[in-house]
C-alpha cells in the first residue's frame, strides 16, 4: 500500500488526483456504517481449514503484485550499481556504501565545529532554510495570488512581470541575496523564497479565477459580505489549488536548496555533498543522494495527505 502510494506520488498530479478520489470513495464506504459492517460478513467464507486456504493464497498473490515489482526494480538498480563499481577503482559499491551509511547513521547528531557535523544536523539545517523561505513565500504569495485572481487589473499589471521572472533560475538571485543580507545563510533562504513564490502565486490566482460561477451566484443572491465570501466561498474553493501550488513549490525548494548550499557553504545537506566531494568520500555522496531523495519523497507525501483532507468532490 505504502509502496504503491509513493510510486503514484511520483507520477505527478494526475495520478495524485486519481488516488485522492479513490481514497474518498473508500472513505465513503467506511462512513456508510451499514455497508461497512455487513460487507466483510457477506464476503468472508465460513470458518474452516478448506475455506481459509484460498483467501490466504489470494492475500499472498495481491501482496506479491504490490511488493514484488518495486523490489525487482530496486534489485536491478543495486545489481547494476555493483557491476559498475566492480569495474571502477574509485566508485564505491553497494556494500561499501551501506557500511559507510551504518557508521554515518549510528551518530547522526555529533558536532565538531561548523564544518564537521552529523548528517542529521545537515538535513535539519537544510529543512529549516526550506521551511523559512517557503513559509515567507506562502505568506507573500498566497495573498498576492488572491489579489491577482480577484482583480483583472492587478492580473494584467503583474502577469508580464511574473512571466519574465519565473523562468529565471533562483540561483541567479543568490548574489542579490548575498548583497542585501551580507550573510550566506539568509541568502540561501532567499533563493528558496524566490523559487517557492511563483507556483504559489500562479496556482492561487488560478484557483480564484476558477471558483465556479454557481457559488458566486449563491453569494450574490444571499448578498453575503466580502468577509463571508472570502471565508465561506473563496477560501475553501481555492484551497485545493493552493495546496497544489504548495506541493509544487516545496518540491522545487528541495531541489534548489542543495545547489544553493553548495554555493554558500555552512551546515546543510548541499554543502555536505560538496564537502564530501572535496574529501573524496564518494560513498557519502551516494548516501546523500538517497537521503535527499527520501526526504523529498516524504515532504511530497505529507503534503498529499494534507491535500486529500481538504479536497471536496464536485457535487
Amino acid at each position: 500500500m505504502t509502496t504503491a502510494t509513493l510510486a503514484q506520488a511520483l507520477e505527478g498530479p494526475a495520478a495524485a488526483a486519481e488516488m485522492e478520489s479513490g481514497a474518498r470513495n473508500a472513505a465513503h464506504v467506511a462512513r456508510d456504517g451499514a455497508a461497512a459492517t455487513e460487507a466483510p460478513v457477506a464476503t468472508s467464507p465460513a470458518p474452516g481449514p478448506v475455506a481459509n486456504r484460498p483467501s490466504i493464497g489470494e492475500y499472498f498473490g495481491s501482496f506479491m503484485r504490490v511488493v514484488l515489482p518495486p523490489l525487482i526494480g530496486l534489485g536491478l538498480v543495486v545489481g547494476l550499481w555493483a557491476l559498475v563499481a566492480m569495474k571502477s577503482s574509485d566508485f564505491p559499491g553497494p556494500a561499501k556504501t551501506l557500511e559507510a551509511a551504518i557508521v554515518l547513521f549510528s551518530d547522526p547528531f555529533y558536532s565538531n565545529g561548523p564544518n564537521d557535523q552529523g548528517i542529521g544536523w545537515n538535513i535539519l539545517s537544510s529543512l529549516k532554510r526550506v521551511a523559512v523561505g517557503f513559509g515567507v513565500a506562502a505568506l507573500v504569495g498566497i495573498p498576492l495570488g488572491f489579489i491577482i485572481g480577484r482583480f483583472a487589473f492587478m492580473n494584467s499589471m503583474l502577469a508580464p512581470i511574473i512571466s519574465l521572472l519565473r523562468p529565471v533560475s533562483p540561483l541567479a538571485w543568490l548574489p542579490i541575496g548575498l548583497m542585501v543580507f551580507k550573510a550566506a545563510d539568509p541568502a540561501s533562504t532567499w533563493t528558496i523564497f524566490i523559487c517557492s513564490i511563483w507556483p504559489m502565486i500562479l496556482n492561487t490566482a488560478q484557483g480564484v479565477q476558477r471558483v465556479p460561477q454557481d457559488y458566486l451566484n449563491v453569494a450574490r443572491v444571499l448578498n453575503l459580505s466580502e468577509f463571508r465570501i472570502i471565508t465561506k466561498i473563496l477560501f475553501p474553493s481555492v484551497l485545493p489549488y493552493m495546496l497544489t501550488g504548495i506541493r509544487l513549490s516545496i518540491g522545487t525548494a528541495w531541489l534548489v536548496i542543495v545547489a544553493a548550499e553548495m554555493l554558500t557553504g555552512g551546515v546543510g545537506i548541499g554543502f555536505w555533498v560538496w564537502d564530501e566531494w572535496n574529501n573524496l568520500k564518494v560513498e557519502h555522496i551516494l548516501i546523500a543522494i538517497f537521503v535527499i531523495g527520501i526526504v523529498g519523497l516524504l515532504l511530497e507525501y505529507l503534503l498529499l495527505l494534507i491535500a486529500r483532507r481538504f479536497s471536496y468532490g464536485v457535487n
Partner: protein
Amino acid sequence: MNAIVKVENVGMSFETKKGRFIALQDVNLQIRSGEVVSLIGHSGCGKSTLLNLIAGLTLPTSGVMLCNGREIAGPGPERAVVFQNHSLLPWLTCFENVHLAVERVFGAKEGRDALKARTAKALEMVHMEHAAHKLPQEISGGMKQRIGIARAFAMEPKILLMDEPFGALDALTRAALQDELIGVMEKTGATVVMVTHDVDEAVLLSDRVVMMTNGPAATIGEILAVDLPKPRDRLKLAHDARFAECRAAILEFLYQKQMKKAA
C-alpha cells in the same frame, strides 16, 4: 392588483463575436403576490434569461424591472433562487448550507438559537432533518435539490425563483419533489416563478403558465390561466378534463405555433 414583480418592455441583448444577439424583446409581465407562474418554451428561448433578470443576476439592456415598486438593481435575499444544479457549497454540511442563508437574512434581528431553529425547521419542511450533518456529496441528487429548496424557503423571500429545479432528476424523484413543493407552497403561500420545460409540471404547479416564443428576440407568446382548484393531486388530475385541456393548449403552442426547425 398588487403586483410584486413588474416587467415592462424589457429587452436583453448580448454582445457576441458575430455582433449583437437579441435574446429577449418587449417582455411585459406582472406577477401577483401568492401566485405561482411557470415560464415554458423551447430551449434557447430566453426563459432562464428572464428568470436571471428577475433575480437581478443580470441587468436588462432596455426596459424596466420592478420588485415591490423598486427597480431591480442586483440580486437580493428577498428574491431567493433555487438553482438547477442546486449549487450547495460542498464544504458545508446541509445544515450549514441552509444556515448560511438564514444567518444572512435574520442574523441582525434574531439570536443564535432562533436562527438554528429556523434552519432546523426549513430542513424539516423538506423532510431532510436526518441528513442535516451530512455533506452534499454524501446525499443523492434529489436530496440535494430538497436542501436547495429549503435554503431558498428559509430566507422567507418575497418571491421564489426556480430555474428548472427538477430538470436534473429522474421522473420518480421529480414527481416526489413536485408533491413536496406543492405542500411547501400550500403552507407558506409563497410567490413563485419557475422555469420549466415539462408541460405536466407547469400545469400541475402553476396558476399561470407563461409561454415564450422561440428566440432570437423571444417574447411572451401566450399566457394560460390554470383554473384548477388547489391543492392539486396528480392522480386525480390525470383524469380531469380541464387538466387535459390546459395540457393540450400548451402542447399546441409549443409544437404547432412555435414548432422548432429541426436542429
